[in-house]
Every structure is written in structure tokens, then in C-alpha cells.
């Protein structure tokens, strides 16, 4: 009844094929769980990048950071984000039961896929989420080339 369960792999060890498939699935899922195209362990703040033909939008979660202390600079195709999160001044007689939130300065540099129109970079900060709009430099935009018929 269960004689040829893996008919296709009759000649090789069917479990080896299973193992290969499992490894492949693990790899795919691990990549997926990390949010897709993650290369290395990110540093603070974690960033997401969104793009279309017009430009790139970078979002970063910066809870508790004063927007006035966020510094964004763009040189060519490199975005640098610096800032700090201040420790609340709580005075004396404060006892911490739990500390999970970090404080201090942060710097991140992000390589963009193209040069940016530096004058038109805009940023908003809402509910602790920073959003930076980086329009693609006019000279770097893809150009549509029309094909003329020779007739």
C-alpha cells in the first residue's frame, strides 16, 4: 500500500531530498521573518525604505526624540541621520524597577540608490515616527526614449 511513496526519488535517499527542502524553507522563512531584504543587524534607529520612480521615503521609529534634535543631512546619495534621546531629569529619590529604553546619541548613515535633489528633501515627525522624503535628482531620473520609425 505504501510501497512507493517517493516514486520520483526512487534511486536516491528520499530523506535527503526532504532535508534539502526543509533547509530551503528554513532559509526562506528566516529571511522573511527578518523583514525581507535585511543584510546585517540594524543599529538604532531601525529604518525602512520605500521607493518609486520619483524618489525614496525613509521611515524610522524615534519614540521620545525631540524633533528639534534630529539632524538630517544629504550629500549626493548619502543620508545621515543624527540625534539624541535625552534622559528625563527625575531628580533625587527615584528608584528604577525596570530599564529597557535606551538613551543617548545616535548616528546612522544610509546609502540611497540614487542622488537626491537636496533642496527638496522634506521630513515630518509624527507620533514618534520620522518620515523623510527624498526626491530623486532630476538629472538621474530615468528618461523615456522614444523610438522613431525611419519611414
Amino acid at each position: 500500500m505504501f510501497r512507493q511513496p517517493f516514486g520520483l526519488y526512487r534511486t536516491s535517499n528520499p530523506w535527503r531530498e526532504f532535508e534539502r527542502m526543509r533547509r530551503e524553507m528554513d532559509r526562506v522563512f528566516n529571511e522573511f521573518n527578518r523583514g525581507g531584504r535585511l543584510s546585517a543587524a540594524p543599529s538604532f534607529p531601525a529604518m525602512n525604505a520605500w521607493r518609486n520612480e520619483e524618489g525614496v521615503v525613509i521611515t524610522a521609529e524615534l519614540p521620545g526624540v525631540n524633533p528639534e534634535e534630529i539632524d538630517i543631512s544629504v550629500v549626493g546619495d548619502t543620508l545621515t541621520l543624527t540625534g539624541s534621546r535625552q534622559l528625563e531629569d527625575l531628580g533625587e529619590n527615584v528608584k528604577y524597577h525596570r530599564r529597557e529604553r535606551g538613551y543617548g546619541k545616535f548616528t546612522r548613515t544610509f546609502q540611497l540608490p540614487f542622488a537626491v535633489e537636496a533642496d527638496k528633501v522634506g521630513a515630518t515627525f509624527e507620533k514618534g515616527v520620522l518620515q523623510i522624503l527624498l526626491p530623486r535628482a532630476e538629472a538621474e531620473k530615468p528618461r523615456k526614449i522614444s523610438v522613431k520609425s525611419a519611414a
Partner: protein
Amino acid sequence: MANNGTNLQTQEVEKQEVEVAEGTERTRSGKAYIPRADIYETDNELVIVADMPGVDENSLDITLEKNVLSIRGYVESLAPENYSLAYAEYEMGDYERNFTLSNDIDKDNIAAKVKNGVLHVHLPKAGPAKARKITVQAA
């Protein structure tokens, strides 16, 4: 202050997902994360500070049932329109965390505020039970 806390640069960036009890499911689609929190105590109160980026006063749900304080924050997708995600280091999702309170909290005067994606919950300590003087009246 003696304890300066962790440095932002070395802080783990990855969000920790809420574990769902076996046999139950979340009713909202998407993931839920445990917000990173500080808890400190002053002479008069206990304060919970939680990082909940993407949350404001309208998307927070704080309930106290018996001794359990539940904090829930609902995050609407902040995806920019007409853009597609090209690179991701973090995922967006709701926040959930429960704290068990001790009995000496004045449960009627709990106050909360949220600013720049950081929630502060102030839990005042119940005042010391006032010694009640019982007057003895002459019969």
C-alpha cells in the same frame, strides 16, 4: 543619577513579538509587539514609560481589571502612498503589554499621557491609611 540606562546605539533594535496563548488568536491582523518600558518609583507614584512609536491618544487603550493594567496601542499603517517597500529593518504592528499592580496603588487616580510615541502612565501610591480616631461618647 547612578543608573544611566542603556545606550541607544547598543540597544537591541529588533522588536519583541507578543506571545499568544495556545489555542487563541489575535482578532486584528498583523503582529503585536511588546513595547520597551521603563518603570520608576518616586515618593508619591510609580511611573511606567513605554516606547510606542505610531501611537497617539486616540489609538491607545488602557484598562485596569482587578490588579492587571493592560496597555494596548493600535498602529495604523504609515506606509507612504504610491511607494513600495524596498528595504525593511523593522515591522509595524500593534503594542500589547500587561502589568500587575500591587495593592498600594490609588487605582482611581491613574493618569496617562502620550507624546512623540512615548506613553507615560502615572500610578499614584495610595496614601498611608489614616489613623482614624474613634471618639468615645459618654453614655
